[in-house]
C-alpha cells in the first residue's frame, strides 16, 4: 500500500497536536504552520491516523492507496 499525508495550511491553527503525536513526521514550518517533514510509509499509518484524529481543525488528511497488481 501507498500512504499519503497532506496538511492544509489554510485551515491549520498551529495547535501542534500532530507534532506531539508524531514528532518524527510533523513539524512547525517556517510560516508557523504544520508540515510533513519526511516520506511516510505503511509503517506510520497508526501514528498518522492518530494525528488526523487529534487535529482540532481537521487539517490533516491521510490517504491509503492500494497498489495495482
Amino acid at each position, binding site marked *: 500500500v501507498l500512504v499519503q499525508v497532506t496538511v492544509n495550511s489554510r485551515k491549520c491553527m*498551529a495547535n501542534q497536536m500532530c507534532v506531539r503525536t508524531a514528532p518524527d513526521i510533523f513539524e512547525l514550518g517556517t510560516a508557523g504552520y504544520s508540515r510533513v517533514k519526511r516520506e511516510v510509509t505503511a509503517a506510520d499509518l497508526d501514528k498518522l491516523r492518530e494525528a488526523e484524529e487529534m*487535529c482540532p481543525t481537521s487539517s490533516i488528511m491521510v490517504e491509503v492507496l492500494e497498489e495495482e497488481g
Partner: protein
Amino acid sequence: MTTPEAVQATDLVELTGRYFDLEPEIVQDPYPLFHRLQAEAPVLIFRSMATLTRYADIEAVIRDMETYVSRPVGASRVEAAAARLDPHRAALLRENVAFMGQWLSVSDPPAHTRIRGLAHRAFTPRHVAELRQQVQRITGELLDRAAEKGRVELIDEFAFQLPLFVIGAMLGAPAEDRRLVRRLSNALADFIGAEYRGIEEANQAIKEFRSYLHDLYEKRRASPGPDLLTAFMEAEADGQRLTRDELDATMVQLLFAGHETTTNLIANGLHALLTHPDQLARVRAEPQLIGNAVEEFLRWNTSSQVLHRSASRDSQIAGVGIPRGMTLRLFLGAANRDPERYEEPDRFDMTRADLKHLGFGIGPHYCLGQALARMETAIAVGTILARFPVIELDGPARWRPNLQLRGLEALPLRLRAA
C-alpha cells in the same frame, strides 16, 4: 457620547482607561477606540500593562510561548490589584486567582500539555460530530416553547441552555442543575471581565462550585460512564496525571467557558444577522453558508475578547520595550477588526474570501472547545432561521459591561413560525 468623532477628539490614554473601567457608552461600541489604538499606539503602556490591538503583534505574542507565558510573572497585575485592597480581600483575591491559575487557558507547559492531553480527545471534530443529533434535538425542544409564545428572550430561554446542556452531559452535570451553574458562572464572569470586581462573590462561587463538583464525583464514582468526567477521575485517581485541585479547576473552567462563550456567540451572531438584513436574506436563501456565517460572527463580535500574557524576559514589540514581569493585554476582538489584516474590517460580511481569525486564539492554547462551539452555533442559528421566517428585535439590545466576554444583556425577539 462616544461617536467616532468624539473618540477622535479625546485623549487616547484617558479613553482607554474609561473602557477598562467599563464606561457604558464605550462598551456599546469599543471599535472606534480599537482603531485609534491600532493607528496611534499599537502597544500602549498603561496601568502597568501593555495593551495590544494589532493582529500581527497579537499573533506573534501568542505564538512566542517562551517569552510570553500564561502564568503571572513577578509583580503582576494581580499584585497591583491586591496592593489596593485590605488584607482580607487581598487574600481572597489571591485565592481566586490561584484557583483560576490552574485553568488550562492560563497554564504553561508541562502542566498545560498534560491536562490538555487528557481533555483534548473528547473535543476532536469526530467526537463533536457524534453530538450533532443531540444538539439538534435539544435545539428543537427549546424552540418549541419559544414558538408557542411567539416571543423569546433568546439568551435566557435558549442561548445559554443549549451549550450548558451539552457540556453538562459531557461532564456528568444533570440538566436540572443548569440554573445553578449559570449563577455561579456569572459571578466568575464579573470577576474576570471587570478587573477583579466582585472578589467576595467570586470566592463564594468557587466554594459552591467545588462543593457541587464533589457531589458529582461521588455520583460518578458509583456509576462510571464513557464520559469526560470519568476519564478525568481516573486520571486523578492514579495520582500522576491530575491533582484534585487541577480536577476541580478544570471542571469549573469547562462548565463555565463551555457555555458562557458559546451563549454569546449564538446571540451575537443572530443579532448581527438581524441588524444586517442583506446578510440575513443571503443565509436564508443559501443555508449552506451557515458555516461561513459562524466564522464571521467570531470575527465581527468576538465573544472571548481578551487574552493576557506575562513577559518572562525583557523584549520589544513594535519598538516598545516590554520589561520582564509586565502583563500584556491582547484584544482579540480588536485584532479581528484590524484594517491591516482585513478589507473594510467593520463590515459584517460572511462572503469574505478570507474568514480566518483569532477568535479562538492560535497555537497550543487554541480553544479546546472550538469544534463544539462552531457546531452548536451553526445548528442553533441555522435552526432558528429555518423555523421562523419572521424574526424581529423586541426591545433594545445592550452590551454587557465586561472586557473579557462580549455579549448582550438580553436579546428579546418576536418570532413567527412557518
